[in-house]
Each structure stands twice: as structure tokens, then as C-alpha cells.
């Protein structure tokens, strides 16, 4: 890891130890509070990878991935909020071509209410009027291949509960919204571009979640006794944990290598990391037994977050089609 990336990593960890450590479950239960988000903005993490000329922190991509990974070790929701701002909302606003809107967006570092159809299969499904960050004053909607940005009045959205990243609110908004401040057509191409470009970010987030899950399981297996021995003495506990730790190390070395990756590798690391995260967080929960099933222990949250990350950001078949197309360098896997 380059020295400057290492410094960013340490800076993120220092921030997390001070601001988030010990509050992980509370954030999941009660949401990301404005005070914390304000401090995240002050530290420059919220605009991490946005270029300085657009008012962002201007970190390079390797540093950004490390920031997401560190954040996810403490709060998947916080990592997801930063990811959404940098990797989804910023490109979306930039695509409208409105410089003033972009300046306003980056300087306020406030989230946009996002139409969840942006993440569904071809804008389909039951998402309807479901929005991420429904309390925001700016809203992005998807209608007939056109993404439109509106200002909206304050509205009390009907909040819905979700599997993971519960620190982020989702709710129903009904529109019509207020003044339209930007739009662009060709959403299909834009979304498929986003889907592919965010593979590394998703991998970084779920590897962070997995890292915490494994650390918790390893610690628990040292102190928890059954049949007169610590859990770590038993092969069905120690062997899979050791295997997962080795796999995590190998995955981290690849994802954070800073080396150039092929298109197939970029998309593939997301899918491999998601499978790894699902199975690792489940193993951590299982290692904790009944205690893992209780929110207070903060283990079940990791499993939920990993599964949410794997399902919310576009269906797997879409990612697999991109991978197949990367493999054949031609349209593939369409049937």
C-alpha cells in the first residue's frame, strides 16, 4: 500500500475510533445522525473521490477504496452513505451538465432522494415510489429512460424497513415534486456504466464488513467455552474461520493492490467478494450461536448488510452478463 494511501487509512480509522466505535448498533437502529454526517463532511470523507475542481477532496481511487473499507468495518450504513454520494449521486448530478447544481450539491454534501428503480432490473419491479434518502430536499426520479432532478418541499415520507444498511432511510414519496432543476436521457446506458464502475467500491465495502465479522468470530471463539474447551479448540469452528481469514487476506491484497485490473477482474472481484461476505458473515453469526441472533452483539447486522449489498445494487444476473461480455469481448449471456 502506498504511503499516502496508508495515511488516509489511518486517518479514517482514527476518525472512526473517535466517532463511531461503540455506536455501530445504535446507528443501525436509529439511523445516521446529522451530527455524525456533518463531521464526516468536515473531514472530507463525504466528498472523498470528487475532484477538487468540483469542490471535493480529490482523493485518488486507491485511497477512496480504503476509506470505504475502513468505514464499513465500523458501519456498513456509513460506508454506503459515502459510496452513494461519491459514486452514484455525484456522477448523476454531473451528467445533467449543470455546473451550478453540481457546485450546490458538492458544497452542501447533502444526499439526494434517489428513485430506487435506478437499481432495479431495467427500472422494473415493485419499487414504484420507493426512494433512498427520502428526506432530502433534492430528488432524482427515473421515468421512461429520463432521469430528472427536482427540488422538493419537505414531506413526511412513509418510511419502510429494509434488510440492511438500516442507518440509511428508505421511504415512499408520491410527487409531483417542485421545480425541475436538471435532467438527462439515456438512463439505461448511464446506469449500466454506474453498475460496472462501482464494482470495486462494493467489493471494498463488503470486505470491510467481512473483516469485522471475522474478527468478532475469532475473538468470541477464544472466550466462549463448550464441552469444557474454548470454541477455537473445535475443528468445525477453527478450520472455517482460518480458511476465511486466509481468503480475506488474499481478496484484500487483490482489491487494494492498486494494480491495473482487467474488466473481467473488476466485475469479478465484486461478485467474489459478495459471495465471500455472505458466507463469512453467516459463519460469524453461526459461531456466536443464539447470541449472534441478537442485535446487541452486532453480528447479525453484518450478515444483513452483506446480503443487502449483494442484492440492492442491481440483480446478480445483470452483473454476470457484464462479466460474460467482458470474457468474450462481445455480447454474451443474454438468454
Amino acid at each position, binding site marked *: 500500500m502506498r504511503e499516502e494511501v496508508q495515511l488516509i487509512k489511518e486517518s479514517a480509522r482514527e476518525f472512526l475510533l473517535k466517532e463511531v466505535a461503540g455506536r455501530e448498533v445504535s446507528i443501525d437502529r436509529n439511523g445516521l445522525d446529522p451530527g455524525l454526517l456533518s463531521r464526516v463532511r468536515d473531514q472530507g470523507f463525504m466528498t472523498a473521490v470528487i475532484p477538487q475542481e468540483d469542490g471535493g477532496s480529490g482523493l485518488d481511487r486507491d485511497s477512496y477504496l480504503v476509506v470505504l473499507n475502513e468505514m464499513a468495518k465500523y458501519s456498513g450504513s456509513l460506508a454506503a452513505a459515502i459510496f452513494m454520494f461519491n459514486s452514484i449521486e455525484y456522477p448523476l448530478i454531473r451528467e445533467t451538465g449543470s455546473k451550478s447544481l453540481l457546485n450546490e450539491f458538492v458544497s452542501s454534501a447533502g444526499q439526494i432522494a434517489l428513485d*430506487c428503480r435506478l*437499481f*432495479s*432490473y*431495467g427500472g*422494473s*419491479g*415493485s*419499487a414504484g415510489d*420507493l426512494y433512498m434518502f427520502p428526506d432530502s430536499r433534492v430528488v432524482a426520479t427515473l421515468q421512461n429512460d429520463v432521469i430528472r432532478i427536482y427540488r422538493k418541499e419537505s414531506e413526511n415520507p412513509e418510511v*419502510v*424497513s*429494509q*434488510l*440492511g444498511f438500516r442507518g440509511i432511510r*428508505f421511504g415512499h414519496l408520491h410527487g409531483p415534486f417542485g421545480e425541475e432543476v436538471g435532467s438527462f436521457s439515456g438512463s439505461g446506458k448511464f446506469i449500466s456504466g454506474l453498475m460496472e464502475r462501482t464494482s470495486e467500491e462494493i467489493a471494498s465495502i463488503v470486505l470491510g464488513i467481512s473483516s469485522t465479522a471475522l474478527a468478532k468470530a475469532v475473538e468470541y471463539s477464544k472466550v466462549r*467455552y*463448550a*464441552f*469444557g474447551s474454548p470454541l477455537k479448540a*473445535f475443528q*468445525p*469452528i477453527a478450520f472455517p474461520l482460518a480458511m476465511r481469514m486466509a481468503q480475506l487476506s488474499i481478496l484484500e491484497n487483490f482489491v487494494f493492490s492498486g494494480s491495473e485490473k482487467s474488466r473481467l477482474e473488476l466485475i469479478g472481484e465484486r461478485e467474489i467478494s459478495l459471495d465471500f461476505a*455472505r458466507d463469512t458473515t*453467516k459463519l460469524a*453469526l*453461526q459461531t456466536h*450461536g*443464539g447470541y*449472534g*441472533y*441478537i*442485535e*446487541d452483539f452486532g453480528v*447479525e447486522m453484518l*450478515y*444483513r448488510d452483506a*446480503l*443487502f449489498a*449483494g*442484492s*440492492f*445494487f*442491481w*440483480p*446478480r*444476473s445483470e452483473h*454476470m452478463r457484464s462479466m460474460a461480455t467482458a470474457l468474450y469481448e462481445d455480447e454474451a*449471456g443474454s*438468454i
Partner: protein
Amino acid sequence: MDFAMDEKYEEHRKKVRDFAKKEFTEKIAEDCDTGEKYPEELRRKAFEAGLMDFTDPWKILITIEELCSVDESLGVAVTTPYFGAEVLMLFGSDYLKEKYLTPVNTGKAIMGLAVTEPGGGSDVAGIKTRATLEGDHYVLNGSKMFITNGSIANHFVLLARTSDEEKKHHGLSCFVVESTFEGFKANKLKGKMGVRATDTAELQLNNVKVPKENLIGEPGKGFYYIMTFFNISRIYVAAQGLGVAKGALNLSMSVAKNMGESYVSQESVQFEISEMATRFEAARLLTYKAASFLFNFNPNPTLTSMAKFYAAETAVFCTERSVEITGMNGVFGQLERFLRDAKILEIWEGTSEVEKLIIARNLIKEGGVS
């Protein structure tokens, strides 16, 4: 060999399914989930509908499977007021049966089974709650953890240590402990990942006086009684798993269809559906086979553990895959609840690891599979 079920069971299945579809509304399921509320009204209705027919264990299995296919949390909540009853049925005195089983069987009382302790779930023989005989009563001290119906049950079948034998499992005995006994306290556990309509509590026993006649069967035989019970209850947990797997699979197919013909016609999506359905059928065959041994008074603990382990794993597999193939549509609402509810199946009534140990040890002793 005939895999078709008797017509009376298909009729029973339909009756239960109709009940669940009518009574297990999404609103009730969601309210009980978010509010962590026990569905007392539903329990009463399920009892009045005669869904738990103890004269026929196949009907109980079908009831559990069908109810859990609509909502595991509500299904478990309304089928566990009898939890632990088999210990009393098989080993309790006539006095205990009359006093404690009759009110449960007539819907007037709820019972529970208290075995797990804060320091050990899988290690049943290692429990520390102690019962000391003092004149005409036992005095119980200790605590129990993750007890289903813990804060709502009227009485419990409770396992405690009555002597310190060289072989730890020889010194355990079962008692009926009423929740109104002095020194008994239940603290409801909140914040479970799923099955939040079920009541779960930590029990504290501080010098609880239990009449001598509340000892179930013989002293020192408690471990054997509980293991016998697990050989029954694990079949029913497997049935919970079948219900969850089936419910998640069918729901995800419906959601995928709503995502459009072009989505559900993708072969990668169809292959996931095929894999889920095949695993479900395999789990059902295994569960019904294990059940047929048990219900014919010839229990096969190896098959029972296989059924419990595999059905639970299948439930988790199907819920995970269901959420994955439905993308963002699966992470909200009913499917995400199915997923949260499913994971407990790999933990309660013996973790998957414990089941695998039982299977392997039995097979090694018996020289392999028949």
C-alpha cells in the same frame, strides 16, 4: 413405497393453508415483527381452528410446514404454546399431566421448555442450574437463556442438576416450574434478528421452591428425557424449515414474474429457482422419512438430525437465493423477513454443528449408512 399422502392429510394441509392465508395478514406479520409482539389473538384462533391435533403427529408436522410457509414467525408463535409438552406426555405422572397438560391442551395455558443456559447451548450436559432437595420440595437456583415463551408461559419443563455424577449427564433431572413461583423471574429478550413474533426470554431462578411432585419421572434421567424430546422437536423444526423454504421460493417466483417476462425468462434466474425447488423436495423427503420412523415409534436419531440440519440449511439457502434473484425487490418487505426469520433454524434445537456430530458419531458406531 408410496409418496402420496393420505387424502385426509391433503385436506388438513388445505385447511391450514386457508387459515394461514386468511389470518396471517401482512399487516399482522409486519406489526408483530416491528413491534416484537406475541400474536395472542392468532394463538387463540389457531387453537379454536384445531390446527394442532396431538392425536396425529403427521397433522402437526403439516400444520407447522404450512403455517411457516406463510410466515415463520407467526407460524412458530402459534404452534409453540405446547413446547415441551412431549416430555410431560411421555414421562410425567398422571398428576402432572392433569395439572399442567390439560390447561395447555384446552388452550388455557402456555408452556415452555427451559434447557439452554447463558454459558452453554449445545453442551446440554454442562448446565449449571441446580436443584437441591429440601424436605418436600426442591430449591432451584440458576438461570436459563433464549427460552421460547419465556415471558408468557404459565409453566416450564426445566432441566436442572440434582447430583454431581462422574458422567455429567447422569446428574440431571426435569421439573415443572410455574412462572408464579416465588423467586422466578423472566426478562424478555428484545432485538432478535427475526422470529420477532415469538417470545424469548432469560429466566432467573433465585431459591425457587418447587414441590417434590413436580419432578418429572426419575431423578437423574433428565438428560435422557430431553434428548428424547429433541428427537421429536427436531422433526418439527425441520418442518419449520420446509415451510420457510417453500414460502420463500414461491414468493420469489411471484416477485420475479412481476419484474417482467424478460427477467424471469433468463436462464440464470430459472436455474436458481430449479436449485431451490430441488433442495426443497430433497429436504421434504428426508424430513418425512425421519418423521415416519418417529411417528411409527421407531425413532432414528441419525435421520432426525439429518432432516433438521438439511431442512434448516435449505431454508437459509432458499431465502438467501430468493433475495438475490429478486434484487432490490427482495430486500424490503416479506422476503427480507423470510430471510431474517430463517437463520434461527440453524441454531435452535441443536445447531447444525451439533446435528452433524450426532450424525457422524451414530454412523461411525453403526458402521455407516444402511
